[in-house]
């Protein structure tokens, strides 16, 4: 059902619109999104045509916080098809029954087709170097020990961006994969992007 809806939207893609996957040179772009379980804000700025810098903060039900700074580079495959590669570095904090904290590095690859409706597919790999501290309180005194464990978050997104106006775009996506080396239930998001004039 969802696939049919996405394909229907893809078939509408006709206009020669610029891609919403990355801002054009001199543009600032910001996206706010919400869904289950992720909510977040992503901002990007392209100082030139080669790269864009990004800042991204998102939370899963306000129990897990991820924040990252990154750099992304668009690659043109053809007039309509393009690939976006991204590298990021940031951190994770998670509270509750399974607390987690540490630094995270990530890479993402997105392929998209520009048009009135812009379908895209992305794959990501994020490696979390979780730091765990245990304070042992004994009769001899307190002692804190530190350890590190590496977790991977790998998955993909399938979505569409629908430009509503010249500077506003709707983003609908399904996401799935692994979070902290464990399979996570698929998620969905609904986002709204705004960008400045070129």
């Amino acid at each position, binding site marked *: 059902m969802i696939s049919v809806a996405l394909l229907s939207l893809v078939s509408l893609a006709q206009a020669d619109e610029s891609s919403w996957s990355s801002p054009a040179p001199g543009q600032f772009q910001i996206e706010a999104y919400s869904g289950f379980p992720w909510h977040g804000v992503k901002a990007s700025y392209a100082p030139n045509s080669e790269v864009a810098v990004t800042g991204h903060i998102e939370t899963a039900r306000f129990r897990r916080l991820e924040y990252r700074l990154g750099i992304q580079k668009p690659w043109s495959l053809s007039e309509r098809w393009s690939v976006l590669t991204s590298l990021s570095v940031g*951190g994770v904090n998670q509270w509750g029954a399974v607390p987690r904290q*540490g630094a995270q590095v990530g890479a993402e690859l997105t392929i998209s087709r520009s048009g009135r409706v812009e379908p895209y597919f992305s794959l990501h790999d994020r490696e979390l170097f979780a*730091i*765990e*501290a245990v*304070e042992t*309180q004994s*009769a001899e005194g307190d002692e804190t020990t530190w350890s590190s464990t590496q977790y991977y978050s790998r998955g993909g997104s399938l979505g569409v961006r629908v430009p509503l106006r010249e500077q506003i775009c709707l983003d609908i996506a399904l996401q799935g994969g692994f979070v902290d080396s464990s399979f996570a239930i698929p998620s969905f998001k609904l986002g709204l992007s705004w960008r400045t004039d070129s």
Partner: protein
Amino acid sequence: MKRLAFPFLLACSACQGPDVIYEVEYSGSVISDQTGAVELWFLHSQWGDDTLETSYMVIDTLWIDDASTFSGLLEVPQGTGSGLSVYGWQDLNGDGEHCRPGTEPELAGLASVTDYPNHVVEVELILDTACEGPEGI
């Protein structure tokens, strides 16, 4: 690069406090008029918040050969737990199960560790109730 990496890792990890473990050196005795191995359960008397609050959350277990003395070191995770209790049941028929249907009743008992929180505690556990879990005693 390494100079930058350490403050960054510290910033990412300093927001949350460490998991706290409270070490307890315990010793005690099990009193029963029957013969058989005894399984001891060391329990948080209360655990969890709000709707997840529950009684008698298991921390660790220990088998001893008979109703006699025991001792050891217990690592009690701190957090939403409070109180320390010890539950025990005696395996009178040697089947490894407590009061399996069709078998003779087996004794159980529960003791609240009144010394806790303290790094050294003593427990006396009396097994005088048949076929009950910690909630039923």
